[in-house]
C-alpha cells in the first residue's frame, strides 16, 4: 500500500529513444509534481499538476511531456533522450488541509542514457 509509487525503478536506454515513467498515488491528493535529481544530488522541480491541469512548468525542454490521465496518475514521457537526461526522477504529491505543506515523494526512477 505504497502512497506514491513509480515504475520503473531503473531505466537504461540508448540516446535518441523515447521512454515513459509512470507515477501513481493512492493518497487522494490533487497536486502532483515531477522533480529531477542530478548526479550531485541537486533536486529541482520540473512540473506541477493540480487536478489534471498543468500549474508549473520550469522551463523544461519540450522533449519532456507530462500527462495526467486522472487525478491519481502523473506520467512523464521523454522524447529523443539525451545523455544529460541521465538522473533520478521523483514524483511527489502535496498534502491538503493541515498537511498542505507536506510533499510525499515516490522512490524515484533511475534513468541512465547511454
Amino acid at each position, binding site marked *: 500500500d505504497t502512497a*506514491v509509487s513509480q515504475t520503473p525503478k531503473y531505466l537504461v536506454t540508448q540516446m535518441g529513444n523515447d521512454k515513459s515513467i509512470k507515477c501513481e498515488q493512492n493518497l487522494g491528493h490533487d497536486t502532483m509534481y515531477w522533480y529531477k535529481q542530478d548526479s550531485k*544530488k*541537486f*533536486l529541482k*522541480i520540473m512540473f506541477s499538476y493540480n487536478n489534471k491541469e498543468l500549474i*508549473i512548468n520550469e522551463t523544461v525542454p519540450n522533449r519532456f511531456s507530462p500527462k495526467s490521465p486522472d487525478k491519481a496518475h502523473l506520467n512523464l514521457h521523454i522524447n529523443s533522450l539525451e545523455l544529460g537526461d541521465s538522473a533520478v526522477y521523483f514524483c511527489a504529491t502535496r498534502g491538503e488541509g493541515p498537511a*498542505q*505543506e507536506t*510533499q510525499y515523494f515516490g522512490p*524515484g526512477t533511475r534513468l541512465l542514457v547511454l
Partner: protein
Amino acid sequence: TQLLEQSPQFLSIQEGENLTVYCNSSSVFSSLQWYRQEPGEGPVLLVTVVTGGEVKKLKRLTFQFGDARKDSSLHITAAQPGDTGLYLCAGVKGGGKLIFGQGTELSVKP
C-alpha cells in the same frame, strides 16, 4: 539561479559528535522545510518552520528559522550511524513550489 546555499555539502563525523548544517538565502520564503533522503529512496519531510525565529525540536534534531525568514539551521546532537543520509533544505514558494538547497551528505561512523 541557486536561491538556497546549503553548507557543508559533505560531513563525515564520529558517533556521538554534534553537527550543524546551514541553509542560507537572499530570498524570503513563506516557510522552510528540511528533508532527509536515504540511498535509493525519495526525500522524507522532517520539519516545516514557518515563523521567523522559530525553533523546533525532533528528538536529537533542532531546527531554527532565521528572524528574517531567509535562513535556517539543523543541529544534530550526539549523532548516531542511523542519522547517515542526505539532508535537504527547501524554501517554500507559492503553489507549494519547493526550491531545494544542494544538500548535505552526512556520514556518521560508529
